[in-house]
């Protein structure tokens, strides 16, 4: 994982288990804002402040090239406004996205799909609004770190190289966001994807983080989701991805985690 600045070509865009990166031109803004409020104080002086906890996350536009390949093209994936999508926007730092890179994620309602003429390519705007109203997160924070870049795994994570140092333990829970893009195996290709934590970067010390698991899911079709820890859950300093293969023999997925604060 590199640190520092980056350029747009290394920004990915995943939605509901589909990697739309190759079609994208720009994405943003990626808002994380607190509502401003005006109150009148006793002396009649205007007082301005913000509403703690009343966060606004979302409202983003994915500007992409129109491409109509069945199922996986930008037209097939984005041309269905009025639906909710689990979106991940990871930022590779001067290189392809890898673990430890920053990621903006959430479940947002796609409000519009517009064809935009830029004079050359036929492009589209996919406009996303606020997070899903019935599955609002307990955490007013959209930015996390990648625990697993988009790639395939065929075995459990038993190493220490695929872990992310978050600097310190926290006691404010958090949530994981995952995208499963493809899988091989038998039947419905089941697997469990989860987050493990540890106070040291030693393989045997990592244990499952309560709440941060998909449970057994079918990976035969692309799927994405969000799973939250309990508020106040202790999350140790080191985090890593973990997978338990069921009938799947290989799962291609991306995983991120957002620490509560």
């Amino acid at each position: 994982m590199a640190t520092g600045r980056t350029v747009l070509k290394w920004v990915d865009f995943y939605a509901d288990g589909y990697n739309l990166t190759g079609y994208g031109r720009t994405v943003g803004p990626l808002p994380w804002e607190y509502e401003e409020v005006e109150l009148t104080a006793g002396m009649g002086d205007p007082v301005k402040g913000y509403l703690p906890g009343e966060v606004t996350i979302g409202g983003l536009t994915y500007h992409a090239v129109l491409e109509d390949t069945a199922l996986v093209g930008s037209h097939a994936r984005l041309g269905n406004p009025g639906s909710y999508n689990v979106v991940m926007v990871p930022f590779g730092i001067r290189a392809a996205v890898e673990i430890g890179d920053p990621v903006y994620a959430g479940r947002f309602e796609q409000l519009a799909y517009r064809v935009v003429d830029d004079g050359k390519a036929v492009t589209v705007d996919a406009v996303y609004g606020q997070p899903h109203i019935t599955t609002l997160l307990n955490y007013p924070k959209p930015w996390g770190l990648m625990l697993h870049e988009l790639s395939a795994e065929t075995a459990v994570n038993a190493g220490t190289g695929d872990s992310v140092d978050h600097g310190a333990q926290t006691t404010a829970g958090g949530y994981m966001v995952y995208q499963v893009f493809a899988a091989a195996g038998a039947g419905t290709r089941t697997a469990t994807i989860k987050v493990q934590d540890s106070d040291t970067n030693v393989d045997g010390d990592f244990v499952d983080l309560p709440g941060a698991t998909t449970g057994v899911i079918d990976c035969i079709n692309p799927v994405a989701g969000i799973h939250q820890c309990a508020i106040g859950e202790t999350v140790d300093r080191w985090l890593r991805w973990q997978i338990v293969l069921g009938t799947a023999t290989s799962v291609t997925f991306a995983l991120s985690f957002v620490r509560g604060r």
Partner: protein
Amino acid sequence: MAIALGLETVLTSIANLTVTDVQIRDIDEVPDAGEFRTSMLFPDPEGFITAFNVRRDSTGGGGTALMTVTYTLNYRFIFVPAGSLRNLANIYGNLAAKLIAIIEEMLENDDIAGAVDMEVQEIPTIGAVTDPSGTTWHGCTLSLRVTEFVN
């Protein structure tokens, strides 16, 4: 903070790219003349770097500010000496194939060491080009647009 441009590294990175049967030369390997039976891509001695631009991305004086540096690197590709072969159609067919291979290699390696991005900007001339000695070759000129982060 000492400013460090990656230009030299970029030039070496380009020279280290691989195209079958084409020598790609570094800035300290510009030939005095073309070599018969050797296709060569080398820094253009006449205007090697053009459109050099520095943009400050942040506040800060001297070497502190974050900056984006962009510049165009101009190369010449010499394929065969003009008049060395009779069949012009055959020459141009092979020249085009070699040029395509060069472009593909450049496009595939857009994050070479020393730069954050490299794009093939344009090929302003395909046809008669000269080597540094003034001999005319079949070849082309090629421009690469490079982006660097400084600090």
